[in-house]
C-alpha cells in the first residue's frame, strides 16, 4: 500500500494578484485522519482545491496517489466535499446520490450504504432544499463517499452539526482511515483537533505546526492537558516575539 497519499513540495498558489499559499511542503499519509486547522481565510479551502485539481494559479509539485494533482485518472479516486453543500436543492437525497452514482459509474446499491453512513435514511426521499443545513451538508458528504475513494478531502464537513452526530462522523472518518483511506478534514474549530491523528496548523497561507496533537503541544511547551487553541496562540506569539 502507498504510504503517502499526498506529497507536496514548494506549493505556491496565486489568486488574482495575491499569493495565498506561500511555498508549502507536506505529506498526507494513507490510513490516517489529518486535520487541517486554521482561522477562516487562511488558505485551507485553496489548499484542498489544489489537491482535488480544481484550483488555478498553482506552482510547485503536487502528487496525489502517485499522479500529478488534476490528472483525469484521479477523478475516480478522490471524494471531495466543498464548504457549501454541492447537491441539488430541488432533488431528493436519494435522487442526488443516484445521479452522482451514475456519473461515477458506481453501483446503485452503494447509494443506500452511503445514505446510511451519514444517517439520512429517514430523509432519503425528502427534497434537499427542505432539509436543515446540517442534513444538507451530510447529503453532500454522502456523495463524496460514493465509489470508495482512496483520498477524502472534506472542507469543514462537521460545521453546525449536533455533537452526537459529529461524534458519529468522526468515528466514520477513523473507520475509513483504518481501511487505508487518507482522510483530510479542515476545520476552523480548534476543539476538533484532538480527534485527528495528525494536524496541520495553518495561518496566513503557511503551516505554523505539523504533527500529532501531543507533539504540537510539546513543541509549544505545553502539557497534554492544554488544548490546541492554546498551542496555536503560543506558537503564533512565539513567532511574533
Amino acid at each position, binding site marked *: 500500500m502507498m504510504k503517502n497519499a499526498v506529497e507536496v513540495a514548494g506549493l505556491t498558489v496565486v489568486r488574482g494578484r495575491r499569493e495565498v499559499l506561500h511555498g508549502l511542503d507536506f505529506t498526507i499519509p494513507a490510513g490516517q485522519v489529518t486535520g487541517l486547522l486554521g482561522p477562516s481565510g487562511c488558505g485551507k479551502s485553496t489548499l484542498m482545491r489544489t489537491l482535488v485539481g480544481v484550483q488555478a494559479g498553482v506552482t510547485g509539485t503536487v502528487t496525489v496517489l502517485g499522479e500529478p494533482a488534476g490528472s483525469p485518472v484521479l*477523478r*475516480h479516486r478522490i471524494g471531495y466535499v466543498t464548504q457549501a453543500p454541492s447537491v441539488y436543492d430541488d432533488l431528493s437525497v436519494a435522487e442526488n446520490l443516484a*445521479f452522482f452514482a451514475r*456519473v461515477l459509474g458506481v453501483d446503485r446499491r452503494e447509494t443506500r450504504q452511503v445514505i446510511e453512513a451519514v444517517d439520512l435514511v429517514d430523509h432519503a426521499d425528502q427534497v434537499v432544499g427542505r432539509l436543515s443545513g446540517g442534513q444538507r451538508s451530510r447529503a453532500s458528504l454522502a*456523495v463524496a463517499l460514493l465509489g470508495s475513494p482512496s483520498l477524502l478531502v472534506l472542507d469543514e464537513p462537521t460545521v453546525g452539526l449536533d455533537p452526537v452526530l459529529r461524534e458519529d462522523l468522526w468515528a466514520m472518518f477513523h473507520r475509513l482511515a483504518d481501511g487505508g483511506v487518507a482522510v483530510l478534514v479542515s476545520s476552523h474549530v480548534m476543539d476538533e483537533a484532538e480527534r485527528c491523528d495528525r494536524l496541520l496548523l495553518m495561518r496566513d497561507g503557511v503551516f505554523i505546526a505539523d504533527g500529532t496533537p501531543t507533539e504540537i503541544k510539546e513543541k509549544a511547551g505545553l502539557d497534554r492537558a492544554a488544548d490546541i487553541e492554546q498551542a496555536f496562540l503560543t506558537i503564533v506569539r512565539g513567532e511574533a516575539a
Partner: protein
Amino acid sequence: MNPRITLAIAARVLTQLRRDHRTLAIMLVLPCLLISLLWWMFEDLPGDSFDRLGPGLLAMFPFIVMFLVTSVTTLRERSGGTLERLLAMPMGKLDFLFGYAIAFGLVAAVQSAAAVALSVGLLDLTIEGPVWLLTVVAVADAVLGSALGLFVSAFAQTEFQAVQFMPALVIPQILLCGLFVPRAVLPDVLNVVSDVLPLSYAVDAMAHLTRSTTTSDVWADLAVVAAYAVAGLALGAGTLRRRSE
C-alpha cells in the same frame, strides 16, 4: 464524452424540471397563450397578418425560453458548487453541455408541438410544408437558445445579471429577423447584420414552411441554425474550466 454520463445529466435536468410544476406550466402554456393573443389581435382585420407573423413567433419562443432557462440554471450550477463537483468527477465538458442540450431540446419539442398543434389545428395557421419540419426547426432553435444561454452564464455573476443578457442578445435578433420589416428592405448595414444573426434563419425557415411545400431552403436555413448552435456549445465548453480561481 460518455453516453452514460450525458444521459445521466439529461435525466437529472428533466427530473429537476418535473419537480418545478410552475416553471413547467409556464414553459408549456405560455407560448400557446401568446400565439392565441396574436391571432386574436388580427381577427377583425383583413389580410393574412397572422399567417405572416405566427411562424416568426413560433420560432422565437423556444429560443427565448431556452436562453433564459439555461443561463439561469447553469449559473446556479456554477455558483452552487455542483459544477465544480462534477468537474472534479470523471465528467467530460461535452457530457455536461449535451446533457443540457438533450433535456432542453426535448422540452422544446413538446413546447413547440403544443404551440404548432394549436396554431394549425385551432387558429387556422396555413402551413403548406410538412408540419413536423416546423417542430424540427423549433428544436434546433431551442438548442441554439440553450447554447447561447450557457455561454453568457459564464459572464454573469448573479441570476439578475444573467436575465439582463436577454434584452442585449435576444431583442436585437427579434427586431432584425424580418418580423417587423422584411429583411430585404432593411438599410444595407442592418441587412448585413441580420444576415449574421441566427434567429433570422430560423424565422426564414418557419416562414418558408408556411408558403411552400419545397423543403430544400428549409434544410439550408436549418443547417445555419444548427451550425450556430454547435458554435455556441463550443464557446460554452470554453467557459467551463476545470481549474478556477
